[in-house]
């Protein structure tokens, strides 16, 4: 092993560099600059700053003086130090002999990172969101729900009809009757929008769009939707999704380090896909819990099954397959299967919700 190496020396005082010869000894390095007296660096005062990556020269610094450094272009120098100075093994010098193992280690690290990321995504984030949502006072949820309600559904869009509202309230009350007490005050409002949809705002505000009332053939179908929305509220899905979005963002930030600017655009796409999964989980949970609510209230679950059958027929197979990962809801097939399984659990014969006349009248709630 050669003991003498060429490099250059920086004295840490001026920005001039001097060609130098380094002699490796058992207890340290002797640096002989082209001019000036030799410098003695005991091993324990030396720190390696560069030279751990391919192509990098080895840069050692003396810990006693800021900037005093020795640069040796040949990484083999490190091997010589380890061979000649046994004490160097205890120091955190890079060992070039292990470089070839890096690729393998990096692949292992990648696999571990993917496993950890998937684990956090699958279990960690939902669990943390559930825990955090449990700490949010329900009064805050109600506050948020009221603000959204006032802003998104201003009074002129709401269908106000006292008598018909009473029938609607009776359906909701029937669903809630068997449910254990919740800290929420449930209220349902029909809104003059043509889309077939309904929303659950945090805190207990349920909003049913007029389009959904028009499309519902039976009061049981409407009740199925209401039960689904009640489950969203009780399981605090909105609050949880806020925490899930935040933890997904934290997860991505942790995984990407210094990303900023345009990189965030790409990451936002990833985060969006990640959040959709949580949305589908919430929907599946609301289907399940809403269905149970229907059964407990003695509402006929078969119209609900018919509703999903119709939806599955209408949309066909197109929305299954890979597209399912871009959906906020589970696939129609999955929802249909879940609804059928629940319907099969029904033991007692269903009791009618409201009379035919009342239902026909309720469907005209927005006619004023």
């Amino acid at each position, binding site marked *: 092993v050669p003991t003498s190496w060429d490099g250059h020396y920086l004295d840490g005082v001026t920005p001039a560099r001097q060609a130098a010869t380094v002699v490796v000894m058992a207890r340290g390095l002797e640096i002989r600059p082209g001019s000036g007296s030799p410098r003695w660096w005991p091993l324990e005062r030396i720190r390696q700053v560069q030279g751990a990556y391919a192509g990098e020269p080895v840069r050692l610094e003396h810990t006693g003086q800021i900037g005093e450094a020795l640069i040796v272009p040949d990484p083999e120098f490190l091997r010589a130090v380890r061979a000649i100075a046994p004490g160097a093994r205890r120091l955190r010098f890079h060992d070039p002999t292990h470089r070839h193992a890096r690729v393998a280690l990096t692949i292992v690290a990648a696999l571990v990172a993917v496993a950890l990321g998937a684990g956090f995504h699958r279990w960690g984030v939902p669990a943390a969101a559930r825990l955090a949502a449990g700490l949010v006072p329900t009064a805050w949820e109600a506050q948020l729900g009221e603000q959204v309600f006032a802003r998104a559904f201003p009074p002129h869009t709401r269908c106000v009809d006292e008598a018909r509202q009473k029938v609607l309230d009776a359906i909701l009350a029937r669903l809630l009757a068997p449910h254990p007490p919740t800290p929420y005050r449930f209220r349902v409002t029909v809104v003059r929008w043509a889309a077939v949809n309904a929303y659950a705002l945090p805190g207990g505000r349920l909003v049913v769009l007029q389009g959904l009332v028009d499309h519902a053939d039976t009061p049981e179908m409407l009740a199925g939707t209401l039960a689904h929305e009640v489950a969203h509220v009780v399981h605090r899905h909105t609050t949880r999704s806020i925490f899930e979005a935040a933890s997904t963002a934290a997860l991505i930030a942790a995984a990407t380090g*210094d990303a900023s600017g345009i990189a965030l655009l790409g990451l936002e796409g990833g985060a969006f896909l990640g959040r959709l999964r949580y949305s589908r989980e919430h929907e599946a949970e609301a289907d399940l819990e809403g269905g149970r609510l229907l059964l407990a209230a003695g509402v006929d679950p078969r119209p609900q099954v018919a509703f999903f059958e119709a939806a599955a027929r209408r949309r066909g197979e197109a929305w299954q397959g890979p597209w399912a990962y871009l959906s906020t809801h589970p696939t129609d097939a999955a929802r249909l299967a879940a609804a059928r399984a629940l319907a099969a659990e029904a033991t007692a014969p269903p009791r009618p919700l409201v009379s035919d006349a009342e239902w026909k009248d309720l469907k005209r709630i927005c006619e004023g």
Partner: protein
Amino acid sequence: MPGAPTVRPPVTDVADVAAALFGPRASPATPRPAAALATGAPGPSRSLTFHGRAGTLLGIFVVNVCLTLATLGLFYFWARVRVRRYLIGQTELDGDRFSYHGRGLEVLIGFAKAACLFGPPFFALQWLPGLLDLGTGATVAVSIGAYGVFLLLVPVARVGARRYRLSRSAWRGIRFSFQGRALAFVRVFASGWLLMAATLGLAYPVFATRNHAFLVRHSHFGSGRFAFDGRGTDLLVDYCYAVLLTLPTLGLAWFWFVARQRRYFWEHTSLGGLRFRSTVTGGRLLGLKAVNAALLVLTLGLAWPLTSVRNAAFTCRHLHLEGELDRDAIRQTPAAASATGEGLLSFLESDLDLG
């Protein structure tokens, strides 16, 4: 940060560090022997060399991700330092590489300090109005207050981050440093901001140039101090063109303004006998950013190591040094710096480089 109106931290570091070296206000009448720069035997004009490889950075990135996840995020600060050390350590000038001496623990402590100092007031101002259901007037007042606090923090964060990063960067063993006061920069920043507000944004070049001048003039390489002699009014015409052409060019005109500003900033920066010159053009900048954006979006951000290396190489390739550093005039000046501003930058998570 010199000549980088939109900040990507790693690149900014390289630019910062490079900036520290590139500033000689050389007097062309008295050329110095090239030997002053030691063995590099520099010609009249030379550029930085960036040796970094995307593959190596990808390896660092993968290990960082793994450790950050395994430590529930704690390793994040060490990860940042590792990336920065790599990018800076791969940048070479006149045969010597820059070196970065930051430590993860320092950055973590800086972050914790920033979070304790500025976190509660900022989030209180931002969230309380909604939660407490204050009246509209009070909500507006509190929002303006939050905005004011933010405006105050931006200059403090920029000075703090610059102070820390420069103090941990070195070339040929000589540390860089930033010796400006945060409060002084708050004054420069706030007065510039007011001027900009009063002129409906027209004074942006003046605002940006004043900020830049403050940051450059208080930057040092050892005992050598950077100088900057640009005036914002010189960029006014280019700025007006950019504003007028924003719609017809769908915003692409800004690449040309940013490139022009970058060239202007570098051309007016010097350090002793060294001066800087940038060859960035709008077209080149657009090409770089367009390809980077496509790579990042298509890979959901995974191409980040590649785009970082591309950015750093671009910065180095287009930055040229002329004249020489006065070897005898520059001495090491040890100076301490805390990482608080550094932490604040990452804490606020926004592109703080409004200049």
